[in-house]
């Protein structure tokens, strides 16, 4: 039987505030354990939370960027459960009245535009970090707790279950990450945990309106893991259904090394979190004017930029996608294109050797890039030479023109000097010349190459071509 795949994602994004969500401890990554803690984030008796306004601002921005309805009234709730990394034994979150609801995100799968609905987006606090004595939680005698991370602001984003393939899930998450990066609310690093994703997946017979039993997959630490784990689940669940078996509603964890999902031990009933309104925090009441103001200050978002690059700059989907996915390259492109540089030459440069060098060593000043493009256009150097100049630009503080002058890389254009080189090349290859004359036209390139070599690559190819034609005609 054929099955429809139904996937919904639950995403946590750590917000890039200086201080924590509910206290003034630093959020800096990588400090020694338990050095960024205070009575509030340790849950000491008597301590009280106070909401960081920047966290609210970032969450609202995220909601706006995901086309959500931002509610001017929202409320905090307590989610009660015991776990060693949870200092108060409850998490401050938003349950009944979330900050944002009813949004969507559009993105491309190949050439097809897709839209995934965002059910809700709300603010909550991060838990601490556990370090296990063994290789995993199950075979550890004890665990160690570090509360530095406890209380960092998070947004939880929940999608509707309208993702229909593992690949789509990955593409959605990549687009979401891009949006968060564009609006600058998070550094969205999966490896540092500032972007995390759990997935719910179920199968149903093709076309059936009845949803199948949902399985939750946790521990998805990379985009690849998300896609692979979902692919694995599709296979596993189809096999179970094919056998006439039933899918168990459960949580499974992704084992990266083994390449499969494993059932997480679960005892007894579903958890009862006993949510209730957080009495220590008054409800959040936002000024609609402030929300509108934030909306106006949102930067151009990835999809809009993609369309602009294609429509206004004539770039291909491939080129535009590159510039959108690497916003620093996109910004550079737009700045230089605005300054009147040739779009095609520019995007070729940025996507070529420049990309590799810039990733290793950081970007060049736009002015130096512009000058490099200009001296190629002017014919001061050849396209081939531009690569050497580019390498040099990353090493030297000099301008492209200064580099060319210092290195003596100006194009040889002196006709008499070049004619001598052409004549030498023809004289040195009588065999090739006669074969060319006999009709082997593909040997033309070989002859040009010989001249270029003699000129150490600096010869103006146009002049070389003309002279070669003349000299051969002369016979």
């Amino acid at each position: 039987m054929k099955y429809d795949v139904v996937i919904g994602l639950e995403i946590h994004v750590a917000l890039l505030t200086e201080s924590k969500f509910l206290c003034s401890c630093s959020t800096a990554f990588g400090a020694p354990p338990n050095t960024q803690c205070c009575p509030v984030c340790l849950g000491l008796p008597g301590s009280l939370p106070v909401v960081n306004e920047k966290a609210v601002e970032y969450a609202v921005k995220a909601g706006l960027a995901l086309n959500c309805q931002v509610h001017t009234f929202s409320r905090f709730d307590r989610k009660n459960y015991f776990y060693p990394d949870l200092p108060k034994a409850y998490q401050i979150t938003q349950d009944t009245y979330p900050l944002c609801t009813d949004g969507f995100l559009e993105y491309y799968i190949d050439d097809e535009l897709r839209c995934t609905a965002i059910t809700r987006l709300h603010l909550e606090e991060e838990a601490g970090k556990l370090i296990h004595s063994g290789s995993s939680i199950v075979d550890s005698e004890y665990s160690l707790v570090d509360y530095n991370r406890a209380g960092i602001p998070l947004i939880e984003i929940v999608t509707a279950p309208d993702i229909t393939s593992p690949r789509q899930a990955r593409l959605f998450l990549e687009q979401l990450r891009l949006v968060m990066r564009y609006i600058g609310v998070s550094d969205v690093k999966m490896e540092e945990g500032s972007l995390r994703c759990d997935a719910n997946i179920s199968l149903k017979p093709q076309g059936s309106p009845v949803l199948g039993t949902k399985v939750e997959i946790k521990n998805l630490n990379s985009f690849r893991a998300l896609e692979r784990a979902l692919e694995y689940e599709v296979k596993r669940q189809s096999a179970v259904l094919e056998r006439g078996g039933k899918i168990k509603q459960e949580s499974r964890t992704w084992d990266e090394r083994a390449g499969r999902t494993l059932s997480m031990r679960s005892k007894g009933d579903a958890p009862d979190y006993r949510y209730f309104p957080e009495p220590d925090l008054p409800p959040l009441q936002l000024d609609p004017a402030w929300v509108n103001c934030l909306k106006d200050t949102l930067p151009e978002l990835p999809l809009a930029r993609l369309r602009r690059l294609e429509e206004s700059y004539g770039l291909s989907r491939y080129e535009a996608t590159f510039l959108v996915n690497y916003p620093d390259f996109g910004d550079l492109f737009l700045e230089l294109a605005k300054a009147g540089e040739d779009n095609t030459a520019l995007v070729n440069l940025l996507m070529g050797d420049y990309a590799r060098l810039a990733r290793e060593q950081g970007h060049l000043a736009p002015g130096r890039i512009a000058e490099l493009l200009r001296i190629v256009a002017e014919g001061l150097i050849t396209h081939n030479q531009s690569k050497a100049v580019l390498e040099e630009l990353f090493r030297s503080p000099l301008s492209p023109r200064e580099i060319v002058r210092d290195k003596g890389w100006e194009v040889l254009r002196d006709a008499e000097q070049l004619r001598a080189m052409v004549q030498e090349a023809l004289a040195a290859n009588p065999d090739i010349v006669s074969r060319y004359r006999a009709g082997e036209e593909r040997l033309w390139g070989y002859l040009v190459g010989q001249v270029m070599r003699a000129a150490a690559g600096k010869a103006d190819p146009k002049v070389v071509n003309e002279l070669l034609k003349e000299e051969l005609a002369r016979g």
Partner: protein
Amino acid sequence: MRELAELLQTGQVSSTELVIACLEQIKQTDGVINAFLTVDEQGALEQAAQSDARRARGEALSPWDGIPVAIKDNISTRGLRTTCASRILRNYHPVYDATVVERLKQAGLPILGKTNLDEFAMGSSTEYSAFGVTKNPHDPARVAGGSSGGSAAAVAAGQVPWALGTDTGGSIRQPSSFCGVVGLKPTYGRVSRYGVVALAPSLDQVGPLAKTVEEAAALFSLIAGEDPRDATSAGAPAFQVPRWNAAVVQGLRVGVPEEFFSSGLNAEVEAAVRRSLRTLEEQGAVLKPISLATNDYAIDTYLTLVTAEASSCLARFDGVRYGERVAAPDANTMFAKTRGAGFGAEVKRRIMLGTYVLSASHYEAYYEQAQRVRTLIKLEIARAFEQVDVIITPTTPSTAFRIGEKRNPLEMYLSDLYTATANLSGICALSLPCGYDSQGLPIGLQIMGDHYQEELVFQVGRVVEASVERGPKVEV
């Protein structure tokens, strides 16, 4: 206190002498009373010496610089043991001061020690303290009330001039009433709760206990006002001791709710309160019978909300970061053993109730319903204050009961019958002595005022106080 402040100001008495006198009184009386869980003799003497040095330099931090104070033991004091009268915190030393403690220190008040309470402030008699009951200075066979029983008894027994307590459903006013002292439950949010170990955060308030209305007002002036560390205190005004003016009662509309004078009210208590009401009337107040019918639901509403919030607030005592731990091979068993051994019977009872009313299948019928009834109570109070300026009632249905007399928890909960409404509606309420019963036990009168009307409540309280003849002196 004005006298004490003047004596300190003129150098006729030193802070050190005051602290020594308090320590001496504690030594003589606390073996019986058991008001203090921790006496910080050394710390108090050091702070007193510093105060004396400041006075000598003419740099007193406040008019009350040097007057010692006692703190209920659910309020965090840096480096000074804070037990909440619970085994689970018997060796807990906070690393920070509650805002109210910080403010008292900034005003130069030496901290004499920490007073007894029902475990985590859950109770009305201090019988639920893990460290022994506090006895009533007027009759050691009787309770001092609770949960701020230690603070009330310490003031009544002359162990300390004044003290801080906390009030979630009557925990300042009821023991004040039982011990014959003055106690204020401030408007919700007017005093910072930062550092106060929570029982029910939507109801808890810190307030002063003292011998006189004026002293209570003075102590309140040191702690009131917005604190950036407590979001629920946002916008709360500070408080200054007013110029006392008996004329405020002229034309004052005094609401007298019939429901607070119904069956179950002790006749002597009723007589004393009505006598004070008549005195106010004679001085120009207008008594207006009003109805607060929702008070009938106050205790049930209160109980539901308190247990729910408490079950969540007390979850953090899991043996990971502080407090006592009972070792076990896995974390969940460790949590359960730690909490099972660390909490007393009443705390466990309330955690069980609270867990039940918050659990998914009961939330709507119990917790949500109680929240909505709370709204009805608030609305009725708001309507009442459209017609009257203050509401006067007895503080408690009876005077102090005997130790061990109330065995049934539900019976104990009824101690808050007249006081819980103020917490549920967030208004302020003052309890002050208005006479004695035939056994010589103090009777308390409660003056409720609208949000942030503490000044009016104190003014009226002072007039009532002046009209009440002083009763038998406390002998221990």
